[in-house]
């Protein structure tokens, strides 16, 4: 009877008699424990890599796209919208230039604008960006619906004219800052010990974690950064960018027209989320390359299952013939080998979660350290069940070729010598 017809006609009785299957599979896996472990290990790596690539991609895209820290737009010097957003919202990249105080005042009082908060950059504290701003950022702005900046107990906001600082939670942890500590700022966005300013600042408050890029920043009064010793007093009233909350969605279209299309001095980066999303669509090819690498690793791992079981078939011929002589049908043997391959896949997929959590933790840590964006490895995602299921299926498929070899084992000639 053709092989696949036999498989399709597997009856209920065969299923129950094949309840012996778990015993056969278990013993086979134990007998070949080393190759089982090695093969399952490679499956675990493949599965973990697949899940990590997908989850990091999904979460990073979502986290970056949804990180607006409560603002709809950024106004800055003429230049790239992406650069403006990366600089002002994510505290990455250099500012494309400065805005005059009058530009800030204009947008602050514009009827379409609800809130306008200026920021100034250009200094750092041992690699962590110093951002000058107004205290209003921490009291008047919702960084997410219903959520504002909150200070840790025992701290307060800085005074506008004082050399005081409030540290984001991540920066505070990494720099070992606590309330009462003092520090010298350093000039530039990158840490250079020789660029120390003579000003001395005092930490007066620590922010609670917001899981946004704001956690990586040390905040000081706008006036303080503008008038830092060593900065050119000519630019003492200029700002790097203005963070904008709009009164209505339509306001964005109108201001976009006004600054970007009709004007040529300033750039109005709006909407923030779309600008970041656009970045991800531009580097989509990179995601696909990473995904392809992950798929190839998975294929290689499944091929490893095929090779491992296939190579053991010669040693197992006798056992297969004995089982057949005891009454096991060819399709039971076929099912046992495919199931064994699937079990190895399942073992690997289960261990793959450990690999995934380890890899994800490392990658998320790097992303958080570099951008302040927080990814959550425990968040759900289709790939977390689809990936392992696909690996198990792929391994089962890899088991088909050795299963066919087992299926064709000639019983009589494989058993004891004929007399």
């Amino acid at each position, binding site marked *: 009877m053709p092989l696949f017809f036999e498989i399709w006609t597997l009856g209920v009785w065969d299923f129950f*008699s094949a309840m012996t299957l778990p015993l056969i599979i278990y*013993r086979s896996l134990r007998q070949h424990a080393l190759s089982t472990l090695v093969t399952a290990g490679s499956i675990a790596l493949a599965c973990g890599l697949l899940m990590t690539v997908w989850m990091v991609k999904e979460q990073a895209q979502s986290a970056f796209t949804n990180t607006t820290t409560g603002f709809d737009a950024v106004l800055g010097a003429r230049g790239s919208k992406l650069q403006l957003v990366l600089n002002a919202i994510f505290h990455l990249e250099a500012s494309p230039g400065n805005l005059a105080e009058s530009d800030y005042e204009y947008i602050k009082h514009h009827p379409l604008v609800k809130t306008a908060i200026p920021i100034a950059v250009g200094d750092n504290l041992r690699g962590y960006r110093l951002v000058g701003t107004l205290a209003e950022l921490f009291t008047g702005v919702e960084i997410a619906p219903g959520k504002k900046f909150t200070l840790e107990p025992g701290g307060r906001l800085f005074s506008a004219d004082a050399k005081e600082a409030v540290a984001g939670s991540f920066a505070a942890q990494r720099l070992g800052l606590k309330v009462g500590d003092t520090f010298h700022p350093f000039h530039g966005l990158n840490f250079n010990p020789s660029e120390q300013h003579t000003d001395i600042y005092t930490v007066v408050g620590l922010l609670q974690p917001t899981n946004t890029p704001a956690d990586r920043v040390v905040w000081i009064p706008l006036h303080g950064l503008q008038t830092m010793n060593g900065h050119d007093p000519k630019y003492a009233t200029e700002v790097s960018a203005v963070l904008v909350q709009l009164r209505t969605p339509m306001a964005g279209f109108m201001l976009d027209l006004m600054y970007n299309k009709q004007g040529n001095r300033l750039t109005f980066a709006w909407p923030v989320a779309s600008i970041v999303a656009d970045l991800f669509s531009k580097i989509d090819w990179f995601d696909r390359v990473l995904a392809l690498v992950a798929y190839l690793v998975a294929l290689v791992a499944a091929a490893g299952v095929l090779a491992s079981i296939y190579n053991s078939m010669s040693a197992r011929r006798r056992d297969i013939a*004995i089982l057949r002589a005891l009454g*096991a*049908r*060819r399709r*039971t043997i076929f099912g046992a080998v495919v199931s064994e391959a699937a079990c190895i896949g399942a073992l690997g997929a289960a261990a793959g979660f450990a690999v995934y959590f380890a890899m994800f933790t490392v990658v998320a840590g790097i992303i958080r350290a570099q951008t302040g964006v927080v990814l959550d490895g425990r968040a759900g995602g289709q790939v977390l069940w689809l990936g392992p299921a696909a690996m198990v299926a792929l391994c089962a498929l890899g088991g088909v070729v050795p299963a066919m070899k087992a299926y064709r084992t000639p019983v009589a000639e494989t058993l*004891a010598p*004929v*007399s």
Partner: protein
Amino acid sequence: MLAVSGLEKSFVAPDGVRATVVSVKEFSLAAGGQLALRGESGTGKTTFLHLIAGILAADAGRIELDGVAMTALSEPQRDRLRAGKIGYIFQAFNLLQGHTALENVVLGMSFGPHGADRPHARELLERVGLGHRLDHFPSQLSTGQQQRVAVARALANRPKLVLADEPTGSLDRPRAKESLALIRGVCRENGAALLLVSHDEQALDQFERVQNFSDINQALL
């Protein structure tokens, strides 16, 4: 119980010539009966047993086992019949090395209509004197003990017919006698017919009914 008529089986030799190995006009064994077939190596005894067990398909002829025409069945049907009605004690025991004694016996019954019955498997092993070796692997058992596991396994599925192919070939004289007595006794207790093939005269002496295989296999004439 067992009725064979006009049975033919041939193989193609390495030189390409087809040679008839088994040609049996008539053969029968009654339910519960015990018969030993005498024959030297290479006379087709194992092939004959394999045909009766349904492991090999006959080229021609008829084998009727407990009223079922084995030769008219497809391979899966023969497998099922063998699992339900036949126990086989192989020449080299053919125990599964990766399974314990108990598991070997359980597997001997698993593919039959009653499925796995661990208590029954335990009973059988206790009956053959291995109640204290249930969890031992074949490599941890002596030759005689392995043979007893093979006997227990052959009876596991409550067969109507037990086929034994040179079951004492690997045993010394005292063990061989003991083993044959065990096989005969257990078959008798379970109402199973026994067909044994051997070239060992001392083993054959223990049977009331002994036939020369050359008398029934025309291919040897």
